[in-house]
């Protein structure tokens, strides 16, 4: 089973907090889809099994004309084998969603929507510089459901300055009320080089407050569970059975192919990533050579990535699996390192698996870093 990601590097406008590769432009849309078609062909050899998931991410995949998406998807179907039950997701901006588009997407075979709601509060949306407002977000969800989408995920960003614990609780309750299947809740992060970080540095925008975010995180997790969403990753929750198959593949070490500029691929041994340069991508495709960088993972890299991805999952690390992949010695050292760092209080042992507790998840970076090798 394999997985495929398509990076759509276009947005109508750039959100000030976002550091993903994307251009706010109307140009090059068709050049891009043609280039992606070429890349599909060039890289078809990399994957012999059928694709279990396809994911349109970005950028804003809902921004270009559907015809462009159709071109890309049909290219993928032409050059790869796609499983009958494949999960095919598109990330969509509430602004772009209308009944016509929804029907087109369904017709293409897209069966999962990830809607960038961010918040049902207008004040939050203003801070984030989003195009849509709260009522538009609700309307988008309703229309998608009416159109027949039965696997809808929405994104929230929490810890936005000016928001409160109460407003976040209302957001989560609204998600439950609207019967979406999946919820991703991200703490607002100030990424280097973004407009948001510049504005904070200049004092134009309020900064995030770590203690507030910590409190919100715990309360949001509790609330989500209370209203029927089970947490399965640091930032991801779902109605049982509706885990994102595509994203879970990343976290379980599966191999995947990423198409489009800045997209990452993993074949189990090496990681490669296309350069974050649209023009170079388009020109490269014309010459039959997509520009990329890659690195071969050492056994230490593999172990570190294993810790990094698995410990962010609620399922944690199956001791049997770890032993199988890295040997008994590595397992013994892992358990020894937990004890040495006095991390027992952050771990839960269940069904012969070690996972981070909720307070552990909140400190996952530092804990994982300490447990890494090298």
């Amino acid at each position: 089973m394999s997985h495929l990601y398509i990076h759509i590097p276009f947005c109508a406008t750039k959100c000030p907090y976002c550091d993903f590769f994307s251009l706010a432009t109307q140009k090059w849309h068709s050049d891009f889809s043609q280039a992606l078609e070429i890349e599909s062909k060039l890289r078809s050899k990399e994957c012999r099994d059928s694709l279990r998931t396809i994911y349109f991410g970005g950028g804003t995949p809902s921004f270009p004309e559907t015809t462009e998406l159709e071109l890309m998807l049909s290219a993928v179907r032409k050059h790869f084998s796609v499983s009958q039950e494949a999960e095919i997701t598109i990330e969509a901006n509430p602004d772009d969603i209308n009944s016509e588009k929804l029907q087109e997407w369904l017709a293409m075979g897209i069966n999962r929507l990830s809607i960038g709601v961010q918040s049902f509060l207008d004040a939050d949306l203003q801070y984030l510089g989003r195009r849509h407002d709260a009522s538009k977000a609700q309307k988008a969800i309703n229309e998608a459901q009416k159109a027949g989408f039965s696997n809808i995920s929405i994104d929230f960003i929490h810890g936005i300055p000016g928001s409160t614990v109460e407003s976040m609780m209302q957001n989560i309750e609204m998600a439950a009320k609207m019967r979406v299947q999946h919820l991703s809740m991200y703490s607002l992060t100030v990424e280097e080089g973004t407009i948001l970080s510049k504005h904070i540095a200049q004092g134009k925008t309020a900064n995030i407050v770590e203690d507030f975010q910590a409190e919100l995180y715990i309360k949001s997790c509790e609330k989500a569970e209370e209203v029927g969403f089970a947490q399965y990753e640091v930032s991801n929750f779902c109605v049982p059975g509706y885990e994102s198959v595509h994203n879970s593949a990343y976290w379980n070490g599966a191999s995947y192919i990423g198409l489009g500029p800045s997209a990452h691929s993993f074949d189990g041994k090496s990681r490669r990533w296309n350069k974050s340069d649209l023009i170079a991508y388009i020109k490269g495709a014309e010459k039959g050579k997509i520009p990329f960088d890659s690195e071969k993972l050492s056994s230490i890299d593999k172990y570190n990535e294993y810790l990094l991805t698995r410990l962010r999952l609620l399922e944690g690390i199956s001791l049997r699996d770890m032993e199988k992949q890295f040997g008994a010695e590595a397992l013994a050292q892992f358990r020894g390192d937990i004890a040495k760092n006095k991390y027992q209080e952050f771990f839960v042992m269940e069904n012969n698996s070690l996972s981070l507790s909720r307070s552990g998840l909140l400190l996952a970076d530092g804990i994982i870093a300490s447990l890494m090798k090298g």
Partner: protein
Amino acid sequence: MKNTRNFCIIAHIDHGKSTLADRLLEATGSVSERDFQNQVLDDMDLEREKGITIKSHAIQMLHEVGSEKYKLNLIDTPGHVDFSYEVSRAIAACEGALLVVDASQGIQAQTISNLYQAIDHNLEIIPILNKMDMPSAMPEEVKDQIVELLGCKREEIIEASARTGMGIDNILDAIIHRVPAPKGDPEAPLQALIFDSVFNSFRGIIAYFRIFNGTMHTGEHVRLFNTKKQYYSDEIGTLGMKLQPQKTLSAGDVGYMISGIKVAREVRVGDTITNVENTCAAPIDGFKEAKPMVFAGLYPIDADDYEELRESIEKLQLNDASLTFEPESSAALGFGFRCGFLGLLHMEIIQERLDREFNMDVITTVPNVSYKVYTRKAELIEVHNPSGLPDITKIDYIEEPYIMANVITKSEYLGAIMKLCIDKRGILKNQVFLSTDRVEVTFEMPLAEIVFDFYDKLKSISKGYASFDYHECGYHEADLVRLDILLNGEQVDALSTLIHKANSYAFGRRMCERLKDLIPRQQFDIAIQAAIGAKIISRETIKAYRKDVTAKCYGGDISRKRKLLEKQKKGKKRMRQVGNIEVPQSAFLAVLKLD
């Protein structure tokens, strides 16, 4: 011998000693323009940068006056209180001294103490008023100070500017006509004073000496009086811009000897060279063992570099016999060395040289002085390290070293300086007005008090207008306690200090506050405590951080995130582990600068 002149220069830092030396070298044609770089004599980079002389140097200039040819030996002396013994030996090798005083600054404490040494050795003093070209020069006032100090005639003071070359000829004349020629008997048994040595990686130790009596030949079988070791003088010669080998040197001459000696310890400053068979009756007076005054632990930042650090310190010791070291270990810092230094500047220099010459980054622990601990069994234990203090129940009493500190300052800063010295447990011994607005105060105070932050404070409260000098003056009983720092109940040995009881509470509190700023938040609360014995005297808490997790981790992020966390892990590795608490290097250095 009658045409030889041996002289040194006494000056305060920045009063222009090295520039004046440069001008003399130029005026006598001793250095070609091609070879010239400013401050010829300060050949260590560190000396040029700090603008101070660390090692003694010597250079011979040839100067013709009419038909007479003169040999002028300039012995350059270190310019810091840490090296006052080296200065005294350099002075002992001369018959004259140029007293260089900055016309805009006046006489400073350092200058006075060196001047007294020169007067004690009956040196002819030639007062020079330097930097006369400066608009802020106040020649009449400074001349008053000099006349007062030396009892010389006003017209004996030479006005000069090493920068413009003004007065250089007058200075050369004065050296020739006022400094006496050396005395001594070339036929007597060899008697030569070692005033410094340098290490050359090809030739070993090069000893610098001044012959008082007798004659020295190449290949002579010589003996060092104090170490009692014997060598052959493989090469002797005079010190020009380069070493100039000679067959013989005799009474009155300044020169060098190379004899295959590998380590500086064997060539002690102040020792006497004589002939093995034809031994002189007595050594030259004044020899002292270099005695470290300040001790601190040096630890490699990376524990794996321990052996490399040992080699580096050993190499430094080859040309710096005053550096002592012995292995020690610390629970917090691992394996390292307890090093003895002449003073704080010396310590700083060693640290910098380790960094520059050997690329060794080290953690230095809180420096302390050497204490004499008398036990109830009437034993005497010298303690160089807080952890070496015996159990309190076994101690009868402790003595700590005292110094006599001289401070010269403008009278407007007198009050603040008095307060500083008294806060540092000083007792006022003397106060003299050198002129209407310059005053010299003398305090007896514990050496331990200046080890910490005395210089920096003195400098800041006097806006730089205070000069400071000290000499040891014995040991006195002291009410000392060991102050320990605990992190979550675990004692951090490298942060322990011996401190006067009266200061311990304030010090403990400041330590806790400072550490709170320097130890990063971790996954749990950290209690920082200062304790004397079992008694906790201060406490601060570093709250655990609440959140440390990246929200998003998808395909592209995995490699980036792995690298980020690996970097974080590397950062942690550079920290020292105390229990499960990660303590950054900076925390160990912080206590050196508490304010």
